[in-house]
């Protein structure tokens, strides 16, 4: 399932996948795969992404039914 919330938060912060990846310390492809829902990140990576985008885990990774 695609993570639209993550993509929106990144775009709002005016960051490219490459820039976010550099801040968090992963590859650009990993960010792309998380956004497209093809990779399940670890909790520490989720927290890193949340901190980089000034959001909470709920904002980016909680799926509403």
């Amino acid at each position, binding site marked *: 399932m695609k993570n639209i919330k993550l993509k929106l938060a990144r775009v709002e912060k005016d960051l490219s996948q490459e820039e976010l990846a550099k801040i968090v*310390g*992963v*590859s650009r*492809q*990993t960010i792309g*795969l998380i956004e497209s829902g093809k*990779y399940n*990140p*670890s909790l520490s*990576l989720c927290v890193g992404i949340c901190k980089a985008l000034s959001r909470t885990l709920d904002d980016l990774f909680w799926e509403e039914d």
Partner: protein
Amino acid sequence: MNLFKRTKKITDERIENVRNRIYKEMYYVILVICLASALFKLYKYGAGSGELYLEFAILVGGGLYYLARSIFLGVFWDEVEMHDRNSKTPMSKKTVLGTVALALIIAIFMGVNSAVSYADGSSQGVWYFVLVSFVSVMIYLPILLLFFGGIYLLAKKIGMKNS
């Protein structure tokens, strides 16, 4: 001179995970090559030629390394607990039953081997089979029980200590 300066290596958990998966597959490939080599040597040189030591060392050494690491990191006991949660027969009982079965298989193999190789008549064959099988069980059962039971208890001790 930044050439020898140590830079912090950036690790990507996804790349690390994929790399570990590849290592796992690589181990299977090595096992298959090893088994193929062992079968080829068995076919070409026969069982008693002593040509299979390297393949044996790779197969058994890899298995023992995995066993030791999984016991000392506590993963072995975690798996036992997960198994006991879902299974009606606990792993302790399965270990004992499996060990007894293995000892019986070895004993029957030894008994049949000695009856076929050394007995002159059928009555002597039966006697050799019973005698050698009985002695084999007496020798192998305690050794195997100590070995597998020891592994189980050691894993339990370390698992309990970690949790």
